[in-house]
């Protein structure tokens, strides 16, 4: 079976600025793919190219194996949910949802105001459209809102109507452009679940653009991380998090941000930072500039110096409820290091002015000067330091 949506070598420039570069992406039937990246990375442009709202300069797009590269948006049978919802303010929710059906199912004469609805041919179609709208509204629990105009609805309600407008058409693909970013935090979490549920029920490929990594990780089957017009990595959420292919991916995904330590490699292939050996086997040549990435929850904190540990000074303690963060600063390093600990552990350690941190070899993510992951440093499928970090004190 061919991919539901397939992009090959998509490139796009606006004037001198290169927006997209060599994008390849294949989404299987029913798959939920999140495009995530910082703002300006080109993800929205990519989505609009998939939708047909923009034309790519290079590359091809296929839907279910059918090449649609040159087709207009109206001819691609995809539905899109916009960040601003883009509901027609002069139409009620019902009319908003009806519009795409009318555009596709009725011909020009039948669409004429007043006259159209008296044409015999139109009547049955209109009834069927009304049924479809009712049904979609019921699914989204917005039946009561159908006769309201967008201005009379809350943000969450508009969001649902926008989803309804996409859903009612039963398109071949859903495209969503940051659909949740205008909602408040609690509603956002709630809607995530609903959208995933809708996706599951509709069984249609969904491409979801977001700048929120949590949303991407939590909702998608696969996440494509984009930066500077390129897809750096596309994989399932856990792989993205645990085995980032690129330094930028590692930095972008994960909160608090991954700790980065510059390493110099000695003749023995050991990674050294601040005069301390932190990594025994770095898989890199001597003199190469390597960056060590350690997720805050895998950073191991010790009261006394250990082998492969770095001396740091505690600067701040941050209590988050279920976790606590310990901020520390190492001599010669600009960025503070952050360790995510249990609150109990953190409380215990916070008054030590001086601590020592290390990371298990399997938790060490090494990146070369170009930001590419250096393979072979992490082997285990489980977090390396899981359950061990706090005992060293």
């Amino acid at each position, binding site marked *: 079976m061919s991919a539901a949506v397939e992009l090959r070598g998509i490139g796009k420039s606006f004037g001198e600025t290169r927006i997209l570069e060599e994008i390849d992406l294949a989404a299987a039937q029913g798959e939920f793919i999140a495009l995530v990246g910082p703002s300006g990375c080109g993800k929205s442009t990519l989505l609009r190219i998939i*939708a047909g*709202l923009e034309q790519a300069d290079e590359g091809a797009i296929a839907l279910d194996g059918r090449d649609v590269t040159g087709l207009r*948006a*109206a001819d691609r049978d995809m539905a899109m949910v916009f960040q601003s919802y883009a509901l027609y*303010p002069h139409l009620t929710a019902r009319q908003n949802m009806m519009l795409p059906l009318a555009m596709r199912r009725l011909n020009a004469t039948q669409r004429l105001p007043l006259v159209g609805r008296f044409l015999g041919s139109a009547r049955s179609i209109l009834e069927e459209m009304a049924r479809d709208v009712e049904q979609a509204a019921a699914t989204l629990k917005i039946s009561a809102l159908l006769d309201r*105009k967008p*201005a009379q609805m809350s943000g969450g309600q508009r969001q649902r109507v926008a989803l309804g407008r996409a859903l009612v058409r039963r398109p071949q693909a859903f495209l969503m452009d940051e659909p949740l970013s205008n909602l408040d935090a609690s509603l956002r979490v709630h809607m995530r679940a609903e959208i995933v549920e809708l996706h599951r029920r509709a069984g249609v490929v969904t491409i979801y653009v977001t700048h929120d990594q949590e949303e991407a990780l939590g909702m998608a089957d696969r996440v494509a991380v984009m930066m500077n017009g390129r897809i750096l990595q596309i994989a399932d959420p856990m792989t993205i998090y645990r085995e980032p292919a690129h330094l930028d991916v590692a930095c972008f995904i994960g909160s608090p941000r991954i700790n980065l330590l510059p390493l110099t490699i000695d003749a023995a292939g050991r990674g050294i930072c601040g005069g301390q050996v932190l990594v025994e086997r770095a898989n890199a040549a001597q003199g190469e500039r390597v960056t060590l990435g350690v997720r805050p929850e895998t950073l191991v904190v010790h009261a006394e110096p250990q082998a492969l540990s770095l001396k740091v000074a505690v600067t701040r303690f941050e209590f988050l409820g279920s976790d606590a963060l310990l901020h520390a600063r190492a001599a010669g390093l600009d960025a503070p290091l952050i360790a995510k600990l249990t609150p109990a552990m953190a409380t215990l350690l916070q008054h030590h002015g001086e601590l020592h941190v290390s990371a298990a070899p399997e938790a060490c993510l090494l990146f070369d000067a170009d930001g590419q992951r250096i393979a072979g440093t992490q082997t285990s499928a489980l977090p390396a330091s899981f359950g061990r970090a706090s005992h060293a004190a």
Partner: protein
Amino acid sequence: MLRDGPLREDLMPEVLPPEDLPPRGAPRDAARGEIDRHEARAAWLLSLPTLVLMLLLLVLPCAALVALSLTDAELGVPEMHFLGLDAYLNLLTDRDFIRSFRNTAVYVGLVTPASVVLGLVLALLIEAGTDLRAFFRSVFFLPVVALTVAMASVWQYLMHPSFGPINLMLKLVGLPSVNWLGSSDIVLPALALIGIWQAVGFNMVLFLAGLAGINRDLYAAAEMDGARSAWSRFWTVTWPMLGPTTLFVVTITVINAVKVFETVATLTQGGPAKSSDVLLWTIYQEGFVYLHVGTASAMAVVFIVVLMALLLVQTRILERKVHYT
């Protein structure tokens, strides 16, 4: 001002809906009363100069106008008689006044649709591409800032029946020349032509502001929804979204067109045979030339009442159709 703007929103519409007040968190208590009183006092003080001016320049003159309109007052003649409503009945049978009324209506009826539609077309054309946008915007706006009286002189030359460039051009393409300002059948359309020329640029800028305020996503949504042609996108998005702007543009155009005076005063003085007599010109003639202040006042009162009625009806009817809240 325009787009989501002040005017289109409330110029006439809300003849005062409940006002959104500054949010106040604190519950009402004794201290609040003091603060409220302070605020009210400040508000009155701030509005005082305006209120005084309103009294002097608006309320009293209006009252005086109504009072004068019921008399046969003449400037420079000390005695006057109270006519009461007869003054208005006289107007109803005054053929010249009725003609001037009709002429004004015809003028407004010619200028408004043409300048609104042309203004919209220009705005859409300018917005449709990127080349020379700023240039065109300025060029089409020029007539708005050009002095009406001055340009009227130019138009008089352009429309000259024997050597005016317009007729010379008509002759070039084999059309008969037109007696623009000298024929009682053509003079109103000719004046309307000048009126349209002057109003289009202004309407265009209003529409440009309106277009700039349309959420681009709506076009994308319409395209996704299957609106293939520019034509159907226009009817799905642009036109309904411009509703409030259009209402505002129409209102402004009507108000300005009803007040046509400069071109008439400069070019035709109401002629030939009163066929370009318009309300303001008639009021001016009656009041300041014939010095029949009473009659002129009655005409002015009718003028105001008709203008108000017109705008009220227009907004009442259209308001509901263009506001989406």
